[in-house]
């Protein structure tokens, strides 16, 4: 094994860590900033696959871990909402093989609909959480997470954030480990969560968390820097790096395992300094726990809950500076590419005066000028449910204008159950769904999905999940397929008819993403692609 230094992103480092930890299967759904973990894991020779959504990914991962071998499950922070159902209960069942869930937060929302803080999930579900600050730690903590997962037979979250995922820093890789091959051993009381088996499982979980906290106090990855007795800073993740630069004279406790917190070590640290403050990105998670445990820390000003931290903001936090922060000059906002097939679609939908319940993807950019033609966007798949709700209650004139617009990858991720509801609870005026099918998961960087006919590594999957056949089979009255470039008249006609009728219509506007065409051509030529 080479222990040469390398410059790599946090995502690359997690992938390498999983390879060196002997992970058997990597599984996830694309989501900025987590996407490149599985892509890199695949390039390193790991077996990696995209699931239709994060819930399925987590369940596949649980299956691997129940089979006694190691799995890496990747997603962005909001993906954990989708995967929350299996996530909470796998904390009870526990796992046999190591299960690591790499969850990437997006403080400041570079590319997300909210800035939820995944540390709250660790506490809510009782799942231990490690938090690396740079690529070296991302590599090491991925390996450590697998070890801890098997030591306590519990899944472990690796909490990442944009600045860890997408920053390149130096990594000196270590050794590879080999793990036992998969082998199933029956243990129904442990894995079938009927109430009778779940009640003791919950108690076992809480007992393990007490043990983990003791381990974290004694030998957790929580180094102390500096020896000031005046000012102490408790920090986690990349916030700790900002603090090391911003306040070089402070004594800094850098927490690498943020759940369960090493409270004894934290309280001792607080006692060793005159003044102590927690520097953390997002919610006051550590601060709240420390205050509840009776630790004396100076509360952080509320304004620093919002957005990313950096060296300047950390200085302000430590100084207790509540003055207005200078707003950075606004740069040019992103937009749909020139030549993007979505452009013509939105021009037409705008012309028809549609009320558009939208969804998550490149096409969300249609909310910005020059289109400004999206009315709602909540979460993956919400275009259909929200559209149906509005159809049910609005007066007919408005109801007929409601159109749900969703992309192909998002449709497979979370649109199918919406279609089932549309067929089952049919609005009086019917409904119209437009699937903008550009044949890829474009916004996150052109990933494949079950509807593209290709696997994560862009090789054929053998069978394609057909959007039109699925909709027809579910009972949609009419499915129309148009090319939004060459058949705009037919597209417009189909929309007018669908909105005027009481039919349940799905219009599939199918034309490949122009960036995917370029990427596919490179792939065919054998050149390096993502």
């Amino acid at each position, binding site marked *: 094994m080479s222990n040469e230094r390398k410059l790599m992103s946090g995502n690359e480092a997690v992938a390498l860590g999983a390879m060196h930890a002997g992970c058997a299967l990597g599984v996830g759904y694309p989501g900025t*900033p987590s996407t490149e973990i599985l892509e890199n894991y695949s390039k390193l020779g790991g077996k990696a696959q995209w699931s239709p959504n994060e819930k399925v990914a987590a369940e596949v991962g649980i299956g691997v871990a129940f089979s006694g071998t190691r799995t890496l499950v990747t997603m962005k922070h909001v993906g954990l909402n989708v995967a929350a159902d299996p996530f909470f209960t796998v904390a009870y069942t526990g796992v046999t093989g190591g299960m690591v869930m790499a969850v990437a937060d997006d403080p400041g929302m570079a590319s997300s609909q909210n800035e939820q803080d995944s540390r709250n999930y660790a506490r809510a579900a009782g799942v231990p959480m490690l938090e690396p600050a740079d690529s070296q730690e991302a590599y090491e903590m991925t390996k450590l997470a697998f070890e801890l997962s098997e030591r306590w037979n519990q899944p472990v979250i690796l909490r990442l954030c944009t600045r860890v995922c*997408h*920053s390149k*820093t130096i990594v000196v890789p270590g050794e590879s480990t080999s793990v036992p091959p998969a082998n199933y051993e029956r243990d129904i009381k442990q894995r079938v969560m009927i109430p009778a088996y779940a009640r003791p499982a919950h108690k076992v979980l809480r007992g393990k968390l007490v043990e983990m906290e003791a381990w974290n106090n004694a030998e957790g990855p929580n180094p102390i820097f500096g020896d000031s007795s005046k000012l102490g800073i408790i920090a986690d993740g990349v916030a700790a790096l900002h603090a090391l630069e911003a306040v070089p004279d402070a004594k800094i406790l850098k927490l690498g395992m943020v759940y369960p917190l090493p409270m004894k070590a934290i309280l001792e640290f607080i006692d060793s300094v005159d003044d102590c403050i927690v520097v953390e990105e997002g919610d006051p998670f550590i601060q709240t726990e420390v205050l509840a445990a009776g630790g004396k820390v100076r509360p952080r000003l509320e304004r620093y809950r919002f957005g990313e931290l950096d060296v300047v903001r950390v200085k302000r936090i430590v100084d207790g500076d509540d003055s207005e922060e200078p707003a*950075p000059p606004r740069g040019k906002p992103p937009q749909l590419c020139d030549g993007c097939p979505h452009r013509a679609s939105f021009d037409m939908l705008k012309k028809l005066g549609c009320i558009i319940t939208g969804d998550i993807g490149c096409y969300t950019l249609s909310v910005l000028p020059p289109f400004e033609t999206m009315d709602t966007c909540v979460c993956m798949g919400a275009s259909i449910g929200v559209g149906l709700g509005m159809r049910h209650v609005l007066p007919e004139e408005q109801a007929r204008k409601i159109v749900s617009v969703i992309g192909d990858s998002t449709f497979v991720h979370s649109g199918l159950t919406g279609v089932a509801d549309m067929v089952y609870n049919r609005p009086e005026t019917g409904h119209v769904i437009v699937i903008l099918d550009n044949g890829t998961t474009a916004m996150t960087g052109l990933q494949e999905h079950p509807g593209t006919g290709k696997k994560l590594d862009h090789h054929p999957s053998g069978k394609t999940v057909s959007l039109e056949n699925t909709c027809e089979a579910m009972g949609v009255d009419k499915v129309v397929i148009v090319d939004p470039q060459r058949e705009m008249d037919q597209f417009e006609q189909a929309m007018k008819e669908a909105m005027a009728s009481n039919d349940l219509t799905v219009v599939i506007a199918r034309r490949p993403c122009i960036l995917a065409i370029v990427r596919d051509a490179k792939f065919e030529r054998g050149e390096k692609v993502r």
Partner: protein
Amino acid sequence: MNKVTNVKFAGLGGQGILTCTDILGRVVFDMGNDVKKAEVHGMSQRGGAITSDLRYGEKVFSPMIPVGEANYLVVLGEDQIEPNQHHLKENGILVKPSDFEADKLENKRTLNVALLGALSKHMDISVEQWMEAIRQQFPERLVAVNEKAFMLGRGE
């Protein structure tokens, strides 16, 4: 005193910001420095304004350059100066396309590498070190045109 050099790149998604940051990253990495590079992907890929931070020195902590601490600001377009000027340190150096004859570029897409050429005039790094990183960065068919762009930016 631990001296860290900060280079900030600013432009629009698709202009090759991440590529030229990677090239500089490779150069200073090969020189044995601690290196950190921070960038934001995602929405910003779609033609929006993006910046990329490259920091190097004996020991770098934060991956992000504090506002007003950039020793160099490299902009891919003159329209990027105003929104990013505040990142530049007092007496910091601005590198922009009008520093050289950008209209003489064989391929407009190599502007990013030409700017590295312009940046290189202010740095104590040999041309050969830059060329080595360029050769590692690009597939063979793109090496020559980028080498030329670099030299054009350097004014040689």
